[in-house]
């Protein structure tokens, strides 16, 4: 216990932790706080411009087919494979494959498709540096035998041909082609869910986790890497290596101290948010405990994994490598997050998003996946800490000195 307190104290005094603290507070006040400007009431909820994704095959299929046919005619497909725009132009063989997909989904054959192309009106749109012909295609007849399952399958092939990230990615079809504004009744239903099922606070808890999760998936790595490498940097490592304490106890104590200290600013923000919610919704009974529960499940695995990876990679390679790996993983996760920013949590989603106070049912639809991902990343974090113990024990006994790519201990260097 004493060691744990000392480790916590060490972290509190480190500059990386102070910056971490400031970053969490900054994120909280700049991103989440504006959502608490005024309470959600049955009369103000209309201003949130809620949209719904009907997901009905009858809506999706014709719209998606029209869009794909138009793109096929101009041979220009807009893709966002890693979050950034990419205009895809296919070679004739691949474009023919798209044609085959279209003819399977529609009742038109290749010749009829050509006729449609000739009959379609053309407008010019600027895509990138080029003025491209854009075909206004409407009402391509769907094949009578096509089922929605088969349609999704074919669209999956189309997305593969385009290299991924297109509008036709099966999981994005519903969002891209069946989005429409909610009716007033539907909006009121959302309000009821917000009040009755989320008991106000849980909805805020999700939004809070959404914003803070963005940075908690990456910045703990700095605090962890700094803590691990401080021993070497201050030439204290041999003093510590020669102590009686087991590597297991030392590494786990440090990990626990890292996680606990890094949870503190999050709890502080949670407390501030709770106070604000209680004040805004005087007269109601917001489920503050529920909000802390959802945020805890959501954010704790993020902090744990980022900290554990920071410890493990710093011990195995270097702090720089730990930062590089975690930042690259964060960047890819962020860039590949699909729109809309809710209802997309999968079994292996690291950075979970739910950027709204509403759509509770969308979140609950994936709740088991959400729990799975949280357990998975908690387990991954613990596994990374165990590996750290192993590496630490090897280093401590002089069996291993860490992997270096460059310099005199480089693994590429011929040892003499």
């Amino acid at each position, binding site marked *: 216990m004493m060691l744990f307190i000392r480790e916590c104290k060490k972290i509190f005094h480190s500059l*990386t932790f102070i*910056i971490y603290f400031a970053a969490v507070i900054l*994120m909280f006040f700049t991103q989440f706080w504006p959502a608490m400007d005024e309470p959600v009431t049955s009369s103000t909820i209309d201003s949130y411009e809620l949209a719904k994704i009907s997901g009905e095959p009858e809506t999706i299929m014709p719209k998606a087919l029209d869009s794909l046919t138009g793109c096929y005619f101009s041979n220009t497909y807009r893709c966002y494979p890693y979050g950034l*725009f*990419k205009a895809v132009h296919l070679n004739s063989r691949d474009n023919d494959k798209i044609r085959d997909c279209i003819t399977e989904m529609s009742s038109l054959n290749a010749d009829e498709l050509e006729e449609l192309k000739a009959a379609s009106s053309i407008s010019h749109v600027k895509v990138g540096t*080029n003025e491209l012909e854009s075909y206004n295609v409407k009402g391509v007849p769907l094949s009578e035998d096509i089922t929605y399952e088969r349609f999704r399958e074919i669209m999956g092939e189309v997305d593969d041909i385009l290299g991924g990230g297109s509008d036709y990615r099966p999981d994005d079809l519903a969002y891209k082609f069946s989005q429409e504004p909610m009716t007033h009744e539907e909006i009121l239903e959302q309000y009821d869910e917000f009040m009755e099922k989320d008991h106000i606070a849980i909805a805020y808890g999700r939004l809070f986790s959404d914003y803070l999760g963005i*940075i908690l998936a*990456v*910045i703990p790595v700095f605090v962890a890497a*700094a803590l691990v490498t401080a021993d070497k940097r201050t030439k204290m490592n041999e003093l510590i290596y020669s102590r009686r304490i087991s590597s297991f106890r030392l590494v786990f104590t440090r990990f626990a101290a890292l996680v606990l200290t890094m949870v503190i600013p999050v709890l502080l923000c949670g407390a501030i948010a709770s106070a604000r919610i209680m004040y805004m919704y005087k007269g109601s009974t917001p489920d503050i405990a529920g909000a802390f529960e959802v945020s805890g499940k959501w954010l704790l695995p993020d902090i744990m994994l980022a900290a554990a990876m920071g410890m493990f990679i710093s011990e195995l390679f270097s702090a720089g490598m730990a930062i590089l790996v975690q930042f690259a993983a964060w960047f890819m996760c962020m860039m590949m997050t699909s729109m809309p920013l809710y209802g997309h949590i999968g079994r292996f989603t690291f950075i979970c998003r739910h950027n709204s106070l509403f759509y509770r049912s969308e979140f609950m639809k994936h709740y088991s996946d959400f729990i799975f991902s949280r357990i998975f990343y908690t387990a991954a974090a613990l596994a990374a800490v165990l590996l750290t113990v192993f590496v630490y024990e090897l280093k401590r006994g002089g069996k291993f000195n860490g992997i270096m790519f460059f310099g005199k201990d480089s693994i590429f260097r011929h040892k003499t």
Partner: protein
Amino acid sequence: MALCFSARTVYSDIRHNFLPHYLLAAAIVVITPLFFSVSELDSRQAAQPLEMIISLTGTVLLTPVFMPEQNESIRDLIRSKKAPYLLTCMIRLLIGLLLLAVLTGISVLYMKKCHSQVTFRHFTGTAASAMALGSIGFFTAGVSNNVIIGYMASLLCYILNFIARDKLSIFFIFSMMNGSYDEKKWIFVLSFALILSVFMYFKLIRKY
């Protein structure tokens, strides 16, 4: 004479300390076209890969300038050497800036070759953004005497831009993506001030 000593120190530095960083910066430039489209983009689209990815070369190249002397005893040793420490750092910084300019230049020229609408402004704008990220890392690493803190500050600044976007007004480093170039001169001035203040800090307070 001092310059000669410093140049020799820097040469050995590059071989032993900075090569991985230079290679990583080059790797960022090489990998970008594999993941993001760089061809046939208009002016704003072209700014996306440049500002969001190529600018990270600044963090990689400028933050670790003080890295070899992070250790207290090594720093004392360096102080006692013939090569003036600040001159050595300045040469390292200049090499970093030069590489940054070259890598940004290569990216912009490659995009031009791929028929994207890039101009000289894309080059200077991207270089300014990269320099901003790099100088924040350089400044914090220098003042805190810890390169990890340098990376942390630089990447947090990047993340802040990623999230808060144009709310940052004149300090928005991805402004060309919104079609605005005015921010760049502020960013450049800020970077220059940060770099200068580190040298002032070393000279006046730490008395190197």
